[in-house]
């Protein structure tokens, strides 16, 4: 009764209050736009949306928040460099471009000066996993990365580890920083590897999208031994596995059991990509990681584990979502296991010797 009286006597003022509420709601939504953090989030989301709905082709290879691949054509200043010759290919001993126009990055095919100008305001994120004993590789990885990786550009090293205290303090160049992200470990090393995609997927959404333009996923038990720069950056890139670049597709170690999500039949396949180095724009890496993680879950439900774990799923994804750049085996090599052929002019990112049994144990 009281309530009805309450309403009846002051219905006009309640109406007024409701109108006021609606007005303040409108006011608030504008206020939130003024707060820089929210606006930045919106802008980066709308840029990604533009990229995702508008961008169809590689873009290849550009709005201040957008990376060159997704939005405007980047402007380069006046530069002096030797002219390319239309009738003289830069390399005749190797394939330089895939049939879907993705450049294959070999030494001598690119001009770093032009590319650095095009990628001037780009931030690159590197994701590495240092789980359990693998923390010992961090020091050499970071030291060599400081010397050779994306020198002159803004870099964020994302170290995903279960032992944050064991991460060494490495002096970093200007514009580069380390972000340590705590993750859980798994008993089996196969599980550690399989869950990397899940972690990349989660962190892409939470963090990477707002902090970097491009994301590079790299193995930790490796070191940089020569220049690795912005020539690798594009919407989605993979690296040719050093053990299979010259093999026929039937000898690729794809997952060959039809039950697995990573199954690839013998008459399919372009290249065998290495899981040691892949990446792209944050949106594309997110998509790749999510797809691979979901495929892993389905496999688990069916009681099967892909023969090369994450790498098998990566290869399946890149077969049906063609990368926009492919890195030659210069970018992932193992000096002890492979003899260096003459057309491999540089070794940029090489394996560090390790005792498998020891390092993968508790």
């Amino acid at each position: 009764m009281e309530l009805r009286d309450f309403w009846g006597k002051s219905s006009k003022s309640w109406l007024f209050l409701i109108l006021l509420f609606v007005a303040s709601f409108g006011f608030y939504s504008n206020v939130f736009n003024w707060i820089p953090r929210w606006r930045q989030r919106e802008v980066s989301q709308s840029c990604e949306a533009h990229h995702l709905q508008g961008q169809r082709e590689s873009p290849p290879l550009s709005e201040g928040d957008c990376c060159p691949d997704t939005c405007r054509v980047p402007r380069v200043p006046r530069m002096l460099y030797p002219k390319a010759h239309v009738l003289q290919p830069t390399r005749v001993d190797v394939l330089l471009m895939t049939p879907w126009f993705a450049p294959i990055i070999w030494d001598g095919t690119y001009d770093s000066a032009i590319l650095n100008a095009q990628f001037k305001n780009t931030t690159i994120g590197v994701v590495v996993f240092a789980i359990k004993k693998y923390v010992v590789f961090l020091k050499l990885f970071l030291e060599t990365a400081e010397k050779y990786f994306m020198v002159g550009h803004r870099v964020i090293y994302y170290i995903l580890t279960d032992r944050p205290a064991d991460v060494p303090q490495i002096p970093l160049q200007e514009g580069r920083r380390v972000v340590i992200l705590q993750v859980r470990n798994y008993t089996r090393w196969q599980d550690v590897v399989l869950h990397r995609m899940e972690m990349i997927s989660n962190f892409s959404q939470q963090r990477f999208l707002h902090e970097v333009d491009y994301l590079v996923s790299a193995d930790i038990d490796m070191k940089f031994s020569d220049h690795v720069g912005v020539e690798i950056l594009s919407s989605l890139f993979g690296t040719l596995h050093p053990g299979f670049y010259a093999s026929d597709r039937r000898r690729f170690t794809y997952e060959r059991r039809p039950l697995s999500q990573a199954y690839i039949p013998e008459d399919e396949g372009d290249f065998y990509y290495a899981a040691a180095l892949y990446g792209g724009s944050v949106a594309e890496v997110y998509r790749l990681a999510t797809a691979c993680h979901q495929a892993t879950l389905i496999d688990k439900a069916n009681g099967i584990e892909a023969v090369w774990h994450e790498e098998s799923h990566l290869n399946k994804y890149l077969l049906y979502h063609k990368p926009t750049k492919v890195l030659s085996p210069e970018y992932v090599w193992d000096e002890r296991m492979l003899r260096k052929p003459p057309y491999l002019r540089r070794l940029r990112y090489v394996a560090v010797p390790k005792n498998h049994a020891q390092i993968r144990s508790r």
Partner: protein
Amino acid sequence: MRRHRLAIGLGVCLLVGTVLCTLWVYVEDWLPVSYVPYYLPCPEILSRYPQPKLLEQRPTELLTLTPWLAPIVSEGTFNAELLQHIYQPLNLTIGLTVFAVGKYTHFVQHFLESAERFFMHGYRVCYYVFTDDPTAIPQVPLGPGRRLGIIPIQRHSRWEEISTRRMEIISQHIAKRAHQEVDYLFCVDVDMVFRNPWGPETLGDLVAAIHPGYYAVPRQQFPYERRHVSTAFVADGEGDFYYGGAVFGGRVANVYEFTRGCHMAILADKANGIMAAWQEESHLNRRFISHKPSKVLSPEYLWDDRKRQPPSLKLIRFSTLDKDTSWLRS
């Protein structure tokens, strides 16, 4: 008492408003990010194609990549079927602009007929014909999903004037209409014909074509504008390729930026009482040095039939029609 209630009510509303807005902002973060797939997965049916050979020995061939890693498109560098499977599901519409002013309307018939045969077969296409005499544009039968738009423009007395106004007209047309109708846009000359398939291998963010007359000469011999006063000035040590003004294109937004940039440069020159050596082609070349194309078409895509076809160019797709220029420009 009423005022007291009013104040409480107002306070409650503001509080509820704040809570709802904050909740909304955070809920947005929780929602799973849903992206429109940018790369639709290739259907399995297409995967039966030969494996790319990494260690191939190639004899005399064209350069396949520019120093900034843009592909140079020529026959043999791409798998047409694979590209078709990638691009077809995207439901793209490609625009094609031509200018047919004065006596150049005579070329439209042949141009459109050849385009119907070879240009972007199987895709939605919008032809935009800019002309001063819409009645002179013939009715050419068009395939399904392809249409023709005739846009009247003003006639100028000097042919150079017509040529330099193209950038302005294209950029205005994009702003007014084309940005809503097409995804990609190509701007070509009308006194040419398509002779072989021109497909999705040409699609890119910003596409330029190498001029057939200068692909084998050093940059000092390129007919750049060499007078310092012009905005199209290119110094001796600069320049990648000499691009032809007869073909350029790309994603609609990029073509808009490009044509607008060229138009502004042309206006600046006009204010200084200078006209570049090759009109808009000079400005196009100047702009392509600072805004490098993401894809370059080999001279297969812009050829001059009077030249002898070299062995490195396997398939001429778009070339000139022999014409008497003096009669046309009178």
